[in-house]
């Protein structure tokens, strides 16, 4: 006779309970960027909307930034670290392949022995994290999940490169997800278009750097290591036109699908918070979605640049700070980026 397994205790609904951010101290303006690449303040503003971006000092790590944002989010939610039973960190810039940023963060906020893992979904990482947290809480696996989107992109760019580096900034955003009497997180749309794997990517794998080091050590000839043209440290590149087209016209469909899954229309939204990749993408997406005037649109990119997994919570945090009435309203959030991958959902703003 086979034993029967005890059923789990699912809950019906989840919500975002609190929100926190960390904005690093160094401000990089377009004038500074133009010392590195052939560009102009006017060109960058007109084509991207970006005026400044924040970058973290050398002694501030990805986990330091995550901790600062998480601490504010826990306070905002009124939840102690010890009440958190899963920690999810979405990042592509934690400089250790293992162990995860999440397990370090869990210990720092007093969440041990919470489940802890990182998500690698680039600019969609935060929305992937929300989808995962919602599923963990609804299935009864976790009660309170800390989700952090954090990036120190300044570690993986080449300032003299012209396709993507000038867009990027550092930062962190965190939320706490927990059970709720009424649905505060609608069903997510998450997916990938891996046939565009190369559209935004590192220019090389770390193995190339390892092999060059090994060669230098065995041959005693370090010239390749010292040659800046070798570009041994992997950095980001993109095909901007391909990404732009995909980000606007494919993502408009994903955003519409997220609204449909939530059972709401554009008129029902208080805010639209897309990934902060380019103001022209944000404006075109808003147009495609036919957002009515009352819907506030996240435009944090102007000051913060593109912070990948951190951009949506950073933009939402700012929107709420500047418009406290938006709290309790519905926000459509959509992340998209390297993979290519995407994620979207409607949430109730804490």
């Amino acid at each position, binding site marked *: 006779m086979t034993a029967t397994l005890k059923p789990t205790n699912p809950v019906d609904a989840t919500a975002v309970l609190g929100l926190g951010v960390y904005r690093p101290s160094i401000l990089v303006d377009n004038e500074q960027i133009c010392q590195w690449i052939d560009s102009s303040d006017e060109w960058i503003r*007109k*084509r991207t909307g970006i005026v400044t971006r924040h970058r973290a000092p050398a002694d501030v790590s990805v986990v330091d930034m995550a901790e600062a944002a998480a601490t504010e989010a826990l306070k905002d939610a009124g939840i102690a670290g010890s009440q958190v039973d899963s920690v999810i960190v979405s990042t592509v810039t934690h400089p250790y392949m293992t162990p995860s940023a999440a397990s370090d963060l869990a210990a720092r906020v007093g969440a041990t022995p919470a489940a802890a893992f990182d998500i690698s979904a680039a600019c969609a990482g935060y929305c992937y994290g929300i989808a995962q947290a919602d599923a963990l809480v609804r299935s009864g696996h976790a009660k309170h999940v800390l989700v952090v989107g954090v990036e120190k992109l300044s570690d993986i760019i080449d300032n003299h490169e012209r396709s993507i580096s000038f867009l990027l900034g550092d930062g962190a955003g965190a939320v706490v997800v927990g059970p709720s009497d009424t649905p505060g997180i609608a069903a997510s749309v998450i997916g990938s278009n891996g046939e565009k794997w190369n559209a935004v990517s590192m220019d090389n794998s770390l193995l190339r750097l390892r092999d060059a080091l090994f060669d230098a050590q065995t041959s005693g000839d370090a010239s390749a290591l010292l040659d800046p043209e070798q570009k041994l440290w992997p950095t980001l590149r993109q095909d901007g*036109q*391909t990404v*732009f*087209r995909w980000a*606007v*016209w494919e993502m408009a469909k994903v955003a519409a699908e997220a609204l449909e899954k939530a059972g709401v229309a554009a008129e029902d939204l208080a805010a639209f918070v897309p990934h902060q990749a380019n103001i*022209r993408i944000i404006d*075109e997406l808003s147009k495609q979605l036919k957002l009515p005037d009352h819907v506030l649109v996240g435009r944090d990119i102007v000051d913060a640049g593109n912070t990948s997994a951190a951009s949506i919570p950073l933009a939402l945090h700012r929107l709420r700070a500047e418009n406290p009435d938006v709290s309790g309203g519905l926000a459509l959030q959509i992340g998209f980026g390297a993979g290519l991958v995407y994620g979207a959902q409607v949430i109730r703003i804490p």
Partner: protein
Amino acid sequence: MADKNAILAGLAEIVEEETGLETEEVQLDKSFTEDLDIDSISMMTIVVNAEEKFDVKIPDEEVKNLTTVGDAVTYIANAAG
């Protein structure tokens, strides 16, 4: 081959929608960047809207060759067969 006048009129509407330029200003000999002051990102928007309106495919690498409004009209006319 599709009617070039109809394509020009349709394209002019798309340009007006994206840039606010009057449709009459969108003429065959006008250069998108030099005369109409359309930047590379607006051009992408125009191209995608044109793909939808005329049911054609305009690949990224082709967009660079569309210097004038006439180039775009000819390309769309040929692609639409």
